[in-house]
């Protein structure tokens, strides 16, 4: 079997998604840590279009964009399927993956914002959570049903990072349990899935690292 390598950084929610998928499938891989302030020739060679992490290398073949990588992993290694077989159910899962991608940006923006801009991104995040609470899960334990699927992976990183970022930013909490009971139950269940639990970046490390990064970002703004 061709070697699998993952180019990324440990603090990235996008890289995390790929790690979860690889671990769920039981695929051994080599992790290549990237310095984003000084991008390597390897990264620039294998992701010339976006120059971003994560990049999966399967043999010499690169796959870019976290959820496209997750789908590639799901199709290449078919144990522990992350997408249903039925075309309609697949379309629903893809819809929520795309929603996480499109609307999850408000969470990343919160990290870099202060004052009015921060309040704006917090409101956008609230709206995003509201939509998922109302339309996304229904009565299911996970987006994928009884087991986690692609949409859980996509959102898992958004919501876990939201919790970390709220801790770092230290303003009013957007993701309140009484406002979003379904989502709170879902993220609790998600974090308790053994593979996920084993591969969630350490909370204290993330908060400490994140606080330093946020200070640097706000200072240079």
């Amino acid at each position, binding site marked *: 079997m061709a070697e699998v390598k993952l180019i990324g950084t440990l603090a990235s929610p996008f890289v995390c998604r790929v790690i979860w998928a690889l671990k769920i499938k039981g695929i051994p891989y080599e992790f290549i840590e990237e310095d984003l302030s000084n991008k390597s020739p390897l990264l620039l060679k294998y992701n010339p279009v976006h120059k971003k992490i994560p990049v999966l290398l*399967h043999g010499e073949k690169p796959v870019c964009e976290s959820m496209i990588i997750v789908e590639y992993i799901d199709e290449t290694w078919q144990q522990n399927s992350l997408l249903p077989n039925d075309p309609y159910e697949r379309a629903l899962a893809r819809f929520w993956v795309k929603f996480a991608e499109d609307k999850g940006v408000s969470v990343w923006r919160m990290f870099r914002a202060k004052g009015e801009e921060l309040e704006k991104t917090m409101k956008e995040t609230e709206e995003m959570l509201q939509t998922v609470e109302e339309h996304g899960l229904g009565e299911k334990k996970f987006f994928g049903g009884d087991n986690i699927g692609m949409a859980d992976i996509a959102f898992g990183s958004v919501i876990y990072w939201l919790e970390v970022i709220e801790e770092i930013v230290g303003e009013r909490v957007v993701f309140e349990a009484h406002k979003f009971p379904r989502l709170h139950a879902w993220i609790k269940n998600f974090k308790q899935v053994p593979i996920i639990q084993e591969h969630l970046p350490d909370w204290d490390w993330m908060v400490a690292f994140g606080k330093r990064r946020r200070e640097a970002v706000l200072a240079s703004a």
Partner: protein
Amino acid sequence: MADEVTLLDFWASPFGIRVRVALAEKGVKYEYSEQDLRNKSALLLQMNPVYKKIPTLIHNGRSVCESLIIVQYVDGAWKDKAPLLPSDPYQRAQSLFWGDFIDKKVFEYSKKIWTTKGEDMEAAKKDFIECLKLLEGELGDKPYFGGENLGYVDVAFVPFYCWFYAFETCGNFSIEAECPKIIAWAKRCMLKESVSKSLQDPKKVYEFVLELRKRFGVD
């Protein structure tokens, strides 16, 4: 039971055109339902409560939303004809990558060409052309992005061809002069009925863009 397929759409939308091309490639009979985007119908709001946007496909009472997700759905639901995505996982990932690229970069820059002026517009033009050059590289010597036949990336990109005249006129440039391979590819696609019957008249699209510019206060 016969399939009941309805497409909630807007005539000029390149995203809607993607779905029309995909359905035509598959030979699917469907009801086209033109939507008034300034006065959204109860059906649209019911079938796409999250985004309230077109295109929205309704297949036997169940809705599928987001154009490229609809294209993938159509490809999976009507497997027997005209496969749009490759069966090999690596080739599929490449197709999905370029579809995503067209949505994230090509569409965003093209929109700036007709919604901004001056320096912003010039920057958008430059970025747009750079994107098209990357797509030319991806096309290479193949007749279509999908190889010998239309594929997912062709379906994702070709609807923008009927908007090129509007981009060129608003931006005062020639796409053919910068990216002749793209124009050659588009003309090749237009020889297919699924494409020629789905794309709109570029002059009509341009008139519509002028209306939008007035509405948004660009002119």
